[in-house]
């Protein structure tokens, strides 16, 4: 039978009759009761990561893989530079950066080059991204140019998932919006292990038992905070999140196990062996007003505070630091600060994850 299509002349005139009153059934005044358990569709397991060399989230490394990365970071760091440069000689790694960066970009680039790879940097400010090229097309273009791994920094949370889905290349997440910054959490872990566990590289679920890590400041907008709070409890650490309500919503504690919120900075300091200070991300405040003086009074890490409440603690900061806001110059440069060690550890960790990514692509690595 032919399927009819409305053709010219067939339409009825619009219905001009007055609207019939709606029949509304009176409601039963009793509160609704659930008569039977509701059956609802399941949430299917995530297909990510598609590529075993990708590092999109700290959750994509199990404890065994974590140990391998840490062990390999140390081995690569200690290797003869000329030998090391043969590992990925002339292989291609692309850095795709949609946000400015000093530490992460430079250390990824130095790490890839230390392994002998050719690197290329594509930045949103000096590329066809400015002309409106999409992330998908940019990724496919880099793949066609021979990139075997893409290191992505992006201002949108989740962008590495999109890029991985479209290119199926190993993607290394160098920070996505407010979401994750997995290599930062790994280098923070390496720094913590150096100070508290004599540089151990084999880790398990009890490695950081008894260690409390305070993450302080702008938790809401921080990808460093999310990656750290998802990683450290898996090694037995306890995480205290500390900050004002505007920057630390109550639901942050639901992100995973062994995470608590403590609004009182000095109480948090008193219980912590590691203090990870975060920058206020003015670029992500989205119209929120924050009283700078009030913030400094409540949450600035000062010399006297540190001496009184946490004289033994290791002080971390992912950078960039804003001296005089979240941290004083004296503390940043002081004996308890491990901020520059973190930066150095970044190169070792990134060598290990770049090597891991390229291994998944086959070839010589």
């Amino acid at each position, binding site marked *: 039978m032919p399927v*009819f299509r409305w053709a010219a002349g067939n339409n*009825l005139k619009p219905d001009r009759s007055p609207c019939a009153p709606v029949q509304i059934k009176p409601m039963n005044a009793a509160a609704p009761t659930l008569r039977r358990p509701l059956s609802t569709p399941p949430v299917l397991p995530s297909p990510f990561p598609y590529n075993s060399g990708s590092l999109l989230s700290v959750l994509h490394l199990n404890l065994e893989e974590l140990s391998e990365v840490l062990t390999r970071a140390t081995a690569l760091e200690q290797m003869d530079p000329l030998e090391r440069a043969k590992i990925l000689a002339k292989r291609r790694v692309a850095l795709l950066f949609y946000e400015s960066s000093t530490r992460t970009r430079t250390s990824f680039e130095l790490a890839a080059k230390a392994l002998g790879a050719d690197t290329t940097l594509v930045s949103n400010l000096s590329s066809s991204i400015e002309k409106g090229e999409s992330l998908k097309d940019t990724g496919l273009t880099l793949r066609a140019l021979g990139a075997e791994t893409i290191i992505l920094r992006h201002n949108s949370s*989740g962008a590495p998932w999109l890029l991985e889905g479209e290119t199926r290349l190993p993607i290394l997440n160098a920070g996505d919006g407010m979401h994750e910054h997995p290599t930062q959490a790994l280098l923070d872990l390496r720094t913590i292990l150096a100070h508290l566990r004599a540089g151990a590289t084999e880790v398990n679920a009890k490695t950081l038992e008894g260690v409390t890590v305070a993450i302080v400041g702008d938790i809401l907008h921080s*990808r460093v905070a999310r990656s750290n709070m998802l990683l450290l409890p898996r090694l037995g650490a306890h995480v205290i999140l500390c900050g004002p309500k505007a920057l630390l919503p109550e639901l942050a504690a639901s992100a995973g196990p062994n995470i608590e919120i403590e609004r009182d900075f000095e109480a948090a300091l008193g219980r912590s062996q590691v203090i990870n200070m975060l920058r206020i991300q003015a670029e992500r405040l989205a119209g929120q007003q924050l009283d700078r003086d009030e913030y400094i009074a409540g949450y600035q890490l000062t010399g006297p505070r540190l001496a009184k409440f946490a004289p033994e603690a290791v002080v971390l900061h992912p950078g960039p630091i804003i001296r005089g806001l979240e941290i004083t110059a004296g503390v940043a440069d002081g004996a308890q600060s491990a901020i520059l060690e973190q930066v150095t550890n970044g190169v070792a960790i990134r060598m290990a994850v770049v090597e891991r990514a390229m291994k998944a692509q086959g070839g010589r690595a």
Partner: protein
Amino acid sequence: MTALVIRGGLLLDPGAGVEAPKDILIRDGHVAEVAAPGKLKGISGIEALDASGLVVAPGLIDMHVHLREPGQSHKETIASGTAAAAAGGFTAVATMPNTRPVNDSVETTRWMLEAERGAHVRVFPIAAATRGMKGEAINDYAALKSAGAVAVSDDGLPILKESVMREALSAAARVGLCVIQHAEDTRMTQGGTMNLGPASFRLGLRGMPAEAETSLVERDIRLVTELRDPRVHLHVAHISTAGALAAVRQARRNGLRVTCEVAPHHFLLTDEHVGFYNTNAKMCPPLRSAADRDALLQGLLDGVIDAIATDHAPHAVHEKEVEFDQAPNGILGLETSFGLALRWLHKEGKLPLSRVISLMSGQPAGLLGMKGRGALGVGSFGDAVIFDPKAEWSYKVAETRSKSKNTPFDGWTMQGKIRWTVSEGRVVYDSQA
């Protein structure tokens, strides 16, 4: 003129309380006769559909779709959208006014109804409540109604100003239309891309709080209460929160004319189904918490929700293949709504088939004052969906009739295979054609 017999099926006409084997004769677009099987007289030579083993129900009505025409025909057209509607069992769709230009005029309303648009099923335009959907000046509802509008709404945007909403409710009531409100206090959802909750925190996405919906529904109900006019009819579009539903429930107990619709994705999915940034799980209002979803399912089972409406919102593939926060809101719905409702409400939730049909046909027809639709008695329009309620099938978006493919339900198992859709006595969908 034209005539069609539907023979041997089980007629399910909830409004008339009929659930019995019947043969139906449709002549000149209307139901001419309904008779016991084999009892129709003088039908030799008339085209017949053999509905043995199938259910024959009033054609489905979707009171909330976006067909993108005029203005965004790369996403959908009236022709492609109504083809998808026919495949989904729908014989009437009410189209939201956020087209380009906004449908706030008699001219645009009439243009949408012209035969040249190539509609496969009946289109009922919903006109903009305010000029250009800017939420400031209300339109001429009497003129829009006589041009064919069945309701007014600024869907996609809320009418935030209390004075404007009050005026809209009261002006619409005078001409017998309802105001459909997209309830979202946009002052609370700035930059939000998904429901505010543990999942949004974990994914690093800015959240849209449930209170943004609940508070505006409560505000609107207060306005209805204050207007003290029984003709005032507020309809809450795509309700998504337990709080808003509780407010509607209370308003109904108070005897107010406040109704609501729910979309399949809101009564089935939660913010956990966003997974890792699936842009086909991004819409507004967003997928909510499990507690909200359960409240909506409960509301369907106990009857406080009046209608299932899809909020069919096509977007081109390339528009959704972008970073989550940059993707447009909305998903397809017309081809999956009935299959999902039968699968999850009827089969799993044990909601009687007649209740599902009411929610998707008779009740939305009543809400929008569509006379002669949502029923299959003598004199009604010959709008019918003929389906096998037991058959399971798998939805394949690659085969969609829509111009777009943005659905989270690709590959999902559906229940209730549609055999034919009949619009005013004409077969507009035939699964074996």
